[in-house]
């Protein structure tokens, strides 16, 4: 009997203005029924292209070579009619970002029922919703009325509508919070086990794959660099890329991932203090209490991680600490003095406290060269001295060497990691004492995360720079923070030294958070 899915020498090329570009090269993969295959890799490695090629959903500019055998039948040579019949009935897809993959103006029930009607299935929408643990009444909802996790479940229910033998899940949990992610992964695993479906799971997050997949293939630059049973690949990676990937997902509690030397944690004088900080938004339908009575302290030279799910108020807290928005009540003290309100005073304050944003791509004006971006702060503050020398110095501190060669470069010509260094250099140019870093590595590929974190630690070591790192990732906190503060619905539920909070959580929410983290160590 032929395997459920077999890719033989799959190659995909895109026709572009600059000629053909290979997106996928020579990929061989096999999946048996009831099995789960993980496909890992960084963005742009071609993993999604592989997924889309299975149902021939690639754009017209793509050229496919090799064979894609679905139950022994080659998809690339099917007639359109046959292909349409195969789509969804034999193989279905759970798309990345259910937010956009659902039609916003049709009820989700109709959307689930659509393939059933089309392919003449017998499934009932309510049963399908039941399978993904959603009440039947949700069928009458529109996508925007559902939460991210619910939408992803709708996608799963839809994928199961025609009893397919193969399901391809493309980043099914990206953009979901850890706890929801754990639930969705649970649903998927259960269904695979119950119904004997073959599942191809695609993710950039090795820990997600490790917890759900039997086999794992790691892709890079369009090709597969390593393939094997999931545990083996993660436990003893042979390819350096796999190793880098594995290292980028720190395991909480594993000392190997802790980059902070114990002796680095020292008592220090408080630099920035928030006292009973509350921030209200005036939103639609009334006032939203985003931050409720937060007390937080950052010592000089200290790295504090502020951890929480999206919407927990951590970003608002950071903005308030930076003086970008005024607190509703409470106060912020910098070196014992309350933040100034005047524009001039705030400008002075900002020489001391700088921000590093999540996405370096959008944090740099695409029209400004590296030089202009780094010199921007110097110009605003009219910092005396040789501008070019100051810029070069800042770039060097951010480990962009030789600095002069980066001067005329535009952001889009840089890699993600380099961009983040430029952002950091721009902050460093002003000689700040505290960096507020909002998810500094979340949008970076796994392989460069470590470098940026190491840079932050190095800056602390060399310049005594304190940092407040905002993240949803407990592993990240574990790896570089001295202290952790956990935020939930605008309240700081727990804070303390890293080992204490993450290894011996007191608050129930922290425990829940920790439990949901997928782990590469099974």
């Amino acid at each position, binding site marked *: 009997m032929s395997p459920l899915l077999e890719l033989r020498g799959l190659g995909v090329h895109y026709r572009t203005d600059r000629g053909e570009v290979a997106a996928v090269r020579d990929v061989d993969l096999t999946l048996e029924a009831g099995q789960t295959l993980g496909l890992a890799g960084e963005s742009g490695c071609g993993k999604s292209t592989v997924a889309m090629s299975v149902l021939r959903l690639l754009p017209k500019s793509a050229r496919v070579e090799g064979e894609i055998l679905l139950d022994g039948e080659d998809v690339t040579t099917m007639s359109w009619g046959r292909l349409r019949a195969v789509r969804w009935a034999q193989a*279905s897809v759970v798309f990345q970002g259910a937010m956009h993959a659902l*039609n916003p103006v049709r009820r989700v029930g109709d959307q689930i029922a*659509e393939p059933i009607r089309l392919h003449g299935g017998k499934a009932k929408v309510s049963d399908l919703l039941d399978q993904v643990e959603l009440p039947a009444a949700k069928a009458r909802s529109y996508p925007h009325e559902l939460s991210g996790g619910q939408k992803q479940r709708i996608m799963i229910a839809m994928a199961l509508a025609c009893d397919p033998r193969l399901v391809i899940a493309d980043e099914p949990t990206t953009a979901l919070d850890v706890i929801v992610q754990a639930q969705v992964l649970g649903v998927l695993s259960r269904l695979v086990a119950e119904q004997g479906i073959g599942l191809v799971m695609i993710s950039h997050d090795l820990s997600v794959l490790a917890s759900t997949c039997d086999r794992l293939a790691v892709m890079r630059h369009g090709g597969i660099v390593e393939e094997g049973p999931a545990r083996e690949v993660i436990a003893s990676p042979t390819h350096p890329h796999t190793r880098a990937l594995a290292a980028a997902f720190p395991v909480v509690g594993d000392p190997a991932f802790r980059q902070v030397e114990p002796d680095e944690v020292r008592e220090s004088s408080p630099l920035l203090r928030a006292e009973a900080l509350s921030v209200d938004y005036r939103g639609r339908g009334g006032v939203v209490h985003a931050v409720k009575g937060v007390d937080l302290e950052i010592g000089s030279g200290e790295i504090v991680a502020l951890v929480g799910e999206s919407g927990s108020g951590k970003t608002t807290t950071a903005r308030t600490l930076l003086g970008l928005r005024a607190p509703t009540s409470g106060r912020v003290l910098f070196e014992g003095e309350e933040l100034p309100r005047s524009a001039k005073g705030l400008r002075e304050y900002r020489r001391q406290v700088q921000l590093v944003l999540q996405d370096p791509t959008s944090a740099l004006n695409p029209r400004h060269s590296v030089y202009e971006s780094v010199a921007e702060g110097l110009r605003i503050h009219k910092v005396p001295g040789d501008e070019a020398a100051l810029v070069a110095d800042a770039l060097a501190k951010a480990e962009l060497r030789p600095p002069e060669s980066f001067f005329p470069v535009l952001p889009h010509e840089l890699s993600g990691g380099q961009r983040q260094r430029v952002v950091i250099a721009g902050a460093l140019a002003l000689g700040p004492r505290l960096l507020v870093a909002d998810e500094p590595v979340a949008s970076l590929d796994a392989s460069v995360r470590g470098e940026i974190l190491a840079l932050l630690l190095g800056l602390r070591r060399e310049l005594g720079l304190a940092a407040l790192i905002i993240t949803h990732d407990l592993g990240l906190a574990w790896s570089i923070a001295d202290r952790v503060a956990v935020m939930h619905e605008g309240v700081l539920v727990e804070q303390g030294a890293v080992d204490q909070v993450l290894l011996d959580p007191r608050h129930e929410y922290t425990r829940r958070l920790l439990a949901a983290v997928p782990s590469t160590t099974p």
Partner: protein
Amino acid sequence: MTAPPLVRPSPRRGGGSGLLRHVAGKVGGALVSLAAVVVLGFFLFRLIPGDPTVTMTRGRQVDEAQIAELRALHGYDRPIVEQFGKYVGGLLHGDMGTSLFYRRTVAELIGERVGPTLLLVGTSTLIAVTLGLWLGIRGAWRRDSPFDRASTGVALVGWAMPAFWLGMLLSMVTGNLFPSGGMRFSSTPPDFWSQALDVAHHMVLPCLTLIAVVYAQYQLVMRSSLLEEMNADYLTTARAKGLRDDQVRRRHAVPNALLPTVTLVFLHIGLVVTGAITVETVFSWPGLGLLTYEALAGPDLPLLQGTFVVLAGSVIVMNVLADLLYQVLDPRVRAS
């Protein structure tokens, strides 16, 4: 964000906090706008220099007393605030003053012209919308195909044409096929069908002119709106489900792209009405547009003021209707 091709559908609003409140807000806003139109209508037409009573009595021997009497009669001797109050009070009772030229009330004149304009604008809008949407959908779905290029080209040319010029050309080219103007022949039998046919016959050229100039808007908007949806992920989902191309288009792409376009149709009725000013002038169609043109000749300020308030006001009302329609049509806005 992107520049509009010609016009851009209004941005979608996030989930509101209750339809009722939104409706109330919109209607309230529109009332304020209407008030602004009324204020504008009053003070704008006070800008013109000179004394209206002198104009009225040109060529007649009148003495000071008669002038004073006239001024008092028309209220020109009162303080401007009081005149404004009177004007607003009159408006609320449907009194928009008296035309200098026709010597009839403005309300009456406008009243008898509304029907023909509605007929002309309504018919041409209906046809233009149908045509524009259809062409726009087809063009976008087969982007850059010969059909798309040709139809977009034709639409742009239509859009570039001054309506009145096209009208004159059409009436020159068609020769004796269609009447030279007006809405009906005086000698047509009074029964309904004869009259209807007669009016239809008279309406062909003005209608064609308006359609040719207006449909491009709808086509281009529909096209760009659909193009924007073309790369949407849910269309990939729909294709993956095994839907045929036309099913994907009909069931998924078009309903999404249609929403902003439908809103636009309503917003543009205001533009069509102003387009009607020149077209009605060229074809002597006895509607509001022609009335406006006639009022320009004097100028007949009370009449001009009346048509200004009515045209601008009706467009504001249309705008609110469009917005409310959007509430009903788009589930994202409609739901809580």
